[in-house]
């Protein structure tokens, strides 16, 4: 069709038509608000804001509202999501709303942040003895282990088997093998400790300290005795 006056006008005036608002166009003035993964850089910025430690494992959203005004220019959503992804703070820390403690906590956040989130609901009531055990620092546990080790007549022969274990795991394995507290198979370590406590056998508090410490991945405290896992392992044969 020969170019009509109408089409000539429309072709030439495409931009003009757009300017007149006849056609919808994309606009890039609004900010993208979909949630993104935070990078380390962002976290470092947030670290500097002192967070008040209200509850150890509280990841409820309402706590965010107290911290939001302290957060930087990041949007509220990002603040919430940071909170959701925040790791459960390690139990070895005592519950004190101190700024010094806050920086320590926050360093843990950086480490644990990129890992999976572990959502726990309400905290089980801690008994007195568990609170005492929680106050035992890692150095005390190490000292306890060294005492046991030095009491042995011979040093460990096959070091290659034990060097991969943390001191905590070594302490726990020694506790498993102590038949004084009962058989270690078929019962979780924590329950065995509590049973020994109830029967008045005075199991060492350091063992409870190790058991209550939470870790992740390799650091995670094994619930059942190592021997229990070996006995229950099923081997598939030909």
């Amino acid at each position, binding site marked *: 069709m020969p170019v009509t006056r109408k089409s000539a006008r429309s072709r030439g005036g495409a931009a003009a038509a757009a300017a007149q608002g006849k056609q919808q166009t994309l606009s890039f003035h609004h900010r993208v608000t979909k949630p993104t993964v935070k990078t380390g850089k962002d976290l470092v910025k947030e670290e500097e804001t002192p967070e008040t430690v209200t509850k150890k494992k509280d990841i409820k959203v309402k706590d965010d509202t107290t911290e939001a005004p302290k957060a930087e220019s990041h949007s509220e959503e990002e603040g919430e999501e940071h909170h959701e992804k925040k790791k459960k703070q390690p139990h070895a820390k005592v519950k004190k709303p101190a700024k010094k403690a806050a920086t320590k906590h926050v360093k843990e956040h950086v480490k644990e942040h990129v890992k999976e989130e572990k959502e726990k609901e309400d905290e089980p009531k801690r008994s007195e003895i568990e609170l005492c055990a929680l106050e035992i620092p890692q150095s005390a546990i190490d000292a306890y282990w060294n005492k046991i080790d030095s009491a042995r007549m011979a040093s460990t022969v096959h070091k290659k088997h034990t060097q991969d274990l943390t001191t905590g795991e070594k302490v726990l394995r020694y506790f498993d093998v102590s*038949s*004084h507290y*009962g058989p270690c*198979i*078929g019962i979780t370590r924590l329950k065995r400790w509590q049973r020994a406590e109830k*029967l008045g056998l005075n199991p060492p508090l350091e063992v409870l300290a190790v058991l209550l410490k939470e870790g992740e991945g390799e650091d995670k405290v094994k619930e059942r005795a190592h021997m229990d896992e070996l006995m229950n392992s099923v081997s598939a044969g030909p």
Partner: protein
Amino acid sequence: MVTLDEVLGSGLLQKPSGDAPEALQRQITNYKPLHTFKLEKTRPYQQQYADIYFLRLTKIRPAVEAAASVAWEGTVLGGEKVKRVERVLDVRQGELCWVAGTVYMDMPLKPSILEDVSKDRWISAPTSVGHYYSGNGEDSVMLEDDSGRIRLVGNALQNHFMVTGCIVAVMGTENANGEFEVIDLLFAELPPQPERWSLSKGKKEADSSEDVEMMDASFSGQSHKPSSKKIALVSGLEFSNADTSYAMELNLLLEYLLGEALDPSVQRDELSHITRLIIAGNSISTTAAEQAKPAAAFDTTTVTNKFQSQNKKYGYDSSSYNPVPSQLLDSFLSELLPTMPVTLLPGALDPANASYPQQPIHPAVFPQSRTYMPPPKAGAGKDKDAPEEEEPGWFDSVTNPWEGEIEGWRVLGTGGQNLDDVFKYVESEDRLGMMEAMCRWRCVAPTAPDTLWSYPFQEDEPFVIKECPHLFFVGCQPEFGTKVIHGPDRQAVRLIAVPSFSETREVVLVDTETLDVERVKIVAE
């Protein structure tokens, strides 16, 4: 026409002679059952049985060692002083020492799961062997703890009953064969005994005035007139539809307990004093049906036999189910319950679980007597603490073994499986002696879990007797027996072996003030 006066005068019709006999009242006994042997409904079975032995040893060992150190401390034998040794394996040859541990009886006649598995024998149901005791020297007694085992020999062992699971302290030395020669043996002895009314005392003070008045009334009743309340103990009622040899006696028993038997003077003086009935096991019997089957097999041809076996569906023969025995028990109880509270312990033949401790028989078995039991709670089974506070119903279906407080006395009773199992281990027939031994070992069922099926306890083992009962009864025994035993700390326990009613037709009456025992035999001629 004959008038009434003429008839009356002639002696054909008589007016009633005296006044109607007054209705007799039954007194109420104070009753408080304990839930020591109740298990959770959602209990796990993942754990090992070794925990039971560990719990038992840990709980009883302090008492045994205390008794042993008192008895043997400073003893010098042959110039050597006795030493205490920590573990069984620390015993040295030629050294005089004493050690505490668990007894293990190694008997070839005892059914052993390890033997069956090693020989790759799969038996569908465990065969019940009569006696484990072989008596030809093949049995060996061992002492065990978490470190190891040592064989015990010596003449001192003959004087005492020994079964797997009792905790002992032995003094002696190791001989050249590696066996431990026993010079002396000690048990934990009776545990501390609570006072009478120890459980109800606190409750009495805290209760409302209503209850206090009742208590005062019963107390004053006891001081004004020596009306002795009695508890009736019976076991082995064994209701069945096939065996009717003792059905007449069961009926007479019902009349006796209701207070309808005999003449009014006896009723007033004796029968109305019976305030509670405790049925100690074996109320239902189903063996008669199986006995009837082989008799029928002789008469019929092989064709009918095939028919009978074809009835099997889902692995059990549904035609062999017979609801009549439980119906008979239910009607017996429902007639008795309006006047008398009943406590029912399950036995070996009753519809409760097969392993120890047997849980209470479910109310569904008693459609008529159910009205006397407490109603089921909404959301029950989740609350572990609730059973402690609820009121026991008039009809209390309880666990076997059972512990409770009746009229202030601590009562411990079982349905008989524990004693029957201990009986298989020893040579003697002295059942009362075995009951006494169980009290002195502080363990109600020492042979659990070795030969007596049991739940694998992990946190707490309830078979250990923590507080000495005043009355210990065992049901379903072949004959009646009673004895009073005394402990080192002024404890006194009345032991009663309740005979099986289906065999002996006897009922036991226990006086609630003096704990004296009467035996009543019901004879139908």
